[in-house]
C-alpha cells in the first residue's frame, strides 16, 4: 500500500482538544507528521491589552480550562511582580491548596481521557467521578466548577469555608485509596503495559533542548520542577517531593513512565494538601471575611510605564510563564503587553516528531501520555 497522509482532526475523538495532526503512514507505520494549531486562537494576549489587571484573571482561567486555578495563579504572580504587591501568608497557603486540588482534578481528567484512548472505557467514568469530589471542593472556594476567578492581585477572593478542611481531608483520604485501585486496575494489566511500554521514547536531552517541561520531562529522569527551582508561594514550607521517574530504558521515557509520573504526582499533591491544611496560619476552621487583610492586601491598580513583571510557574502540564509590561491605556490601568508562554505550545511539535516510527495505534497513546491541552496552546 502506498504512503498516504491521514488527517487526524480537527474533529477527532483522540485529539484532546482542537488541533490537527496530519500523519503520513506507510501501512500502519507512521513515517512523517505535521501538527497544525491555531483553531482555538482567541487572541487573549490582544484582549488583555484592553482590560484592567483584575479583569484579566477570568481570561487566564480560560486558557487551560481543565487547570484553571494554576493559570490564574500564574498570572496573578506576574501581576504582583509588576504592581509590587504583597501577599499575606494565609492567602499563599490557600492558593497552594487550590493549585494542588486543581492539579489533582486535571490529572484525573487526563487519566479519564487517556484510558479510553488506550481502550479502557471504564476509567473515564471512574476518574470523572473522583474528579467530582475535587470539583466540589473548588466550587466551595471559587463559586464555580471550572472557571473560578478566585485569585486576586494581593490575595484571594474569599477565605476557605468552615468545614472545608474536614471535607477536604476526608476526600483526600478516600482518594488515596482510589489511586491504589487505579494502579491495581492498570499496572497489573498486561495489556496496559504492553500498549504503553516501549512506545514513544523521548530522551531527556531532546526534551530539554526542545523546551519540554513538567511531568513529561520528569518521566525521563530529570528532576526539574519550578516549585523548587524557581520557588514561589509556600512550597518550601510544605512537605513534598517532586515526582521523578527513572525511565525503564536507556532510550528515554516511554508512555508508561509519563503515566507513572502523573500517578505519583497525584499522591504528592494529596500529601501537600494534608500538610498545608495543618500548617495554614490562622487555623483551618476560621473564616475571614473577604478583603480582610489576612487573605487580601490592597494592591495598586496602575503600573507605571517601563515596569515589567514575570512569573515562572509549574502548571499541571509544564512550566508556564507570564510576562507583563506596564504602561498601557487608562493611564497604566491596562497592561501594555501580556505575553503568555504555554508549555504545550512547545511540547506538541516535539511530540509530533516523537511519533515517527511507531504504529498508527500508538498515536493516541503517545499523544495522550503527553497530556495536551489546546486551550493553553492556542490562547
Amino acid at each position, binding site marked *: 500500500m502506498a504512503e498516504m497522509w491521514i488527517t487526524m482532526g480537527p474533529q477527532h*475523538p483522540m485529539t484532546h482538544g482542537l488541533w490537527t495532526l496530519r500523519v503520513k503512514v506507510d501501512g500502519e507505520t507512521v513515517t512523517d507528521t505535521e501538527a497544525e494549531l491555531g483553531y482555538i486562537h482567541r487572541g487573549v494576549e490582544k484582549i488583555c491589552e484592553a482590560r484592567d489587571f483584575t479583569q484579566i484573571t477570568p481570561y487566564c482561567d480560560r486558557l487551560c480550562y481543565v487547570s484553571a486555578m494554576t493559570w490564574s495563579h500564574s498570572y496573578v504572580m506576574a501581576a504582583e511582580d509588576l504592581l509590587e504587591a504583597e501577599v499575606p501568608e494565609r492567602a499563599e497557603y490557600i492558593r497552594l491548596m487550590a493549585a494542588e486540588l486543581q492539579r489533582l482534578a486535571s490529572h484525573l481528567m487526563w487519566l479519564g481521557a487517556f484510558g479510553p484512548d488506550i481502550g479502557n472505557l471504564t476509567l473515564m467514568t471512574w476518574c470523572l467521578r473522583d474528579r467530582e469530589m475535587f470539583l466540589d471542593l473548588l466550587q466551595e472556594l471559587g463559586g464555580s466548577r471550572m472557571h473560578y476567578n478566585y485569585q486576586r492581585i494581593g490575595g484571594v477572593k474569599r477565605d476557605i469555608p468552615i468545614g472545608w478542611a474536614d471535607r477536604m481531608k476526608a476526600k483526600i483520604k478516600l482518594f488515596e485509596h482510589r489511586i491504589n485501585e487505579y494502579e491495581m486496575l492498570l499496572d497489573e494489566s498486561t495489556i496496559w503495559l504492553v500498549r504503553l511500554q516501549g512506545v514513544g521514547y523521548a530522551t531527556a536531552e531532546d526534551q530539554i533542548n526542545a523546551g519540554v517541561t513538567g511531568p513529561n520531562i520528569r518521566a525521563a529522569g530529570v528532576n526539574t520542577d519550578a516549585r523548587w527551582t524557581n520557588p514561589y508561594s509556600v512550597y518550601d514550607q510544605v512537605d513534598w517531593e517532586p*515526582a521523578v521517574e527513572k525511565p525503564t530504558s536507556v532510550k528515554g521515557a516511554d508512555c508508561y513512565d509519563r503515566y507513572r509520573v502523573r500517578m505519583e504526582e497525584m499522591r504528592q499533591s494529596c500529601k501537600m494538601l494534608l500538610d498545608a491544611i495543618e500548617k495554614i496560619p490562622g487555623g483551618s476552621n476560621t473564616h475571614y471575611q473577604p478583603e480582610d487583610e489576612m487573605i487580601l492586601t490592597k494592591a495598586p491598580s496602575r503600573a507605571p510605564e517601563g515596569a515589567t513583571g514575570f512569573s515562572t510557574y509549574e502548571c499541571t502540564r509544564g512550566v508556564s510563564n507570564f510576562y507583563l509590561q506596564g504602561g498601557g491605556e487608562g493611564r497604566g490601568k491596562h497592561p501594555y503587553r501580556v505575553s503568555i508562554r504555554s508549555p504545550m505550545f512547545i511540547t506538541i511539535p516535539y511530540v509530533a516528531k516523537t511519533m515517527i516510527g511507531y504504529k498508527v*495505534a500508538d498515536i493516541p497513546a503517545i499523544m495522550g501520555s503527553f497530556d495536551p491541552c489546546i486551550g493553553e496552546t492556542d490562547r
Partner: protein
Amino acid sequence: MKDWLGLHDFIFYRTRELTSFMFEDTFLESSSTDIAFFLYVLLTCLTTFAGIMLSMFMILWIERKFYARVNDRRGATTALRSLWVGENGVTAGEWWNMIPFGLGKPIGAINGWLNKVAGNSGHQHEMVNRVGNRSWYGVTIFPGFFQNIADGMKFLMKEHMVPSRADKVIFELAPFLVISSTVMILGMIPLSSGIYGANPELSVLFAFAIFGIAPLGVFFAGWSSNNKYTLLGGIRSAAQLTAYEIPLLLSILGVCIMAGSFNFLEIVHFQHSSGTWLFFLMPLGAVLFLVSMIAEVERIPFDMPEAEAELVEGWWTEYGGMRFGLLFAAEYMRVYAASILFAHFFLGGWHAPFAGTIGQIPYLGDAWLAIPGVIWTLLKAWFIFTVVFVWARTALPRIRTDQILEFGWRMLLPLAVLQVVLSLVYRLVFFDASTLSDTVAGGWTWDLTIAGVNIPWGLPIITTVFWLAVFMIMMKDEYIEENEERMFHVRTMTPAGTHTAGQE
C-alpha cells in the same frame, strides 16, 4: 438425553397431519408432504430465530446494566441486584426475606458478605450518589430492557447516506454479507435438542464455514467507503479475523475429535452420555475458544478495527441508518452466537448440571429435570456472556493490531495444535464406547482406574487441576526483586512491546 420439549418433532408431525388433513381430496393432495415440509422448515426456522432474537435483548440488557454498574463503582452485589431493580433508589428491597420458610436467608448472608468484601462503604456511597442522578424508564421489573428496541426504531428513522465517491455496489453489498452470514448461523445453532432450524450431519462445519464469510464483508465495507480511516480499519479487521479463525477452528476440531462427530446435537449429547462436560476435559481448548471468539467478534480487548480513539468507528464509519443498526446488531448476534456455542461445546448445552445426583432428590429433582433444556442453554450462554465478554470489556484496554496478530499467530496457534493433539490422545487412549449411557445419570467414560482404585471423573479432575496449576504458575510475577529498585512500585521491568519502534 433428549429434552422433553421436542418442538422440532412436534412441528414435523403436526404439519404433516395438518396438510394431509387440509389438502385431502384436493388437487394438492399429492404434494401435501412437500407443502408440509415447507411449512415445517418455515416454522422451525422462525421459532429458532425468534427465540434467539428475543432472548438477545437479554444480552444487550445485561451488558448495559452490568457495564454501567461496574463503571458506577456500586459494587458487585449492586451490579447483580440492580439487574432487575431500578436505579435512583428504586429497589425491590431485601426480597430474599420474603421467600417462605426462611429459605432466602443464605442469599441475604451472601449478599451481606459480598457487600462487605467488594461493595461500597457508607460515605463512599455519598460520593457515588452525588453524580448518580439518572432517571430510569421501562417496566419496573426490567428497567432499561426496552432501550434496545427504542434504539432500533431510532436507527430506522435515520438517513441513509452513500459517500459520493464510494464504490456503490460493494458499499451496498458489504453489510448484506456480514448480516446474512451471521443470521444464517443462527439457523444451525440449536437451542435445545428439540428446537433448531436445520440439522445437517456436518452442522458444525457448515456453521463455521458461514461464520468465516463475515471477514470478507468487513473488508469490503472498509475498502469501498473511500475513506482512509475505514480502509485502515478494514485491513486491520481482515488481518485480525483471518488470524483468529485458525485457533478457533482448531479448538473446535479438538471438540469434535473428543465427541466423535461434527454435529451439534451429537456433541452436546456426547457430553451427557460420557459423564462430563467438555470444559473440564479440555480447559485449554475452552480458553482458546473464548479468546479466539472475542477476537472474532471484535470486542474489547480486540476491537482495534473499530477503535474509536483513532478510527472513529473503523470500517463502519460511513454507514448510516439501519445499515449501521443492523451491523451493530450483527456484532451482538455474533457475540450471542459465540456464547451459545460455548455453552454447547463446553458446558453441556441444554443438559441440567448434576442431573443424576439432583434428579434423585424427591421433589426438587423432578422440578430440576422438568426445566426445559432451552432455559439451561440460555442461562449458560448468558452466564458466559456476563462473566467473560462483558467483564473483559469493562476492565481491559485495547491491544494494538500488530500485537493482536502476533498473539494469534505465535501463541494461540501452537496452543491450538497442542489441544488437537491432546484431544486425539484422550479419544484414542481413554475413550471406550461401551461406557456411554443415555440414562439421566449419564455415563462413566472418563473414570480412571489407578492401581485398582476407581476414581470417578478421574480424567477431567486431573486435567483441570493440571491446567489450573499451569495458570497459577504463569501468573506469578518473576521480577519482584528487580522492581524494588524503581522509585515507584510497578510490575514489569522490561518493555513488553515487541518490534514496536522503528528505532529498534
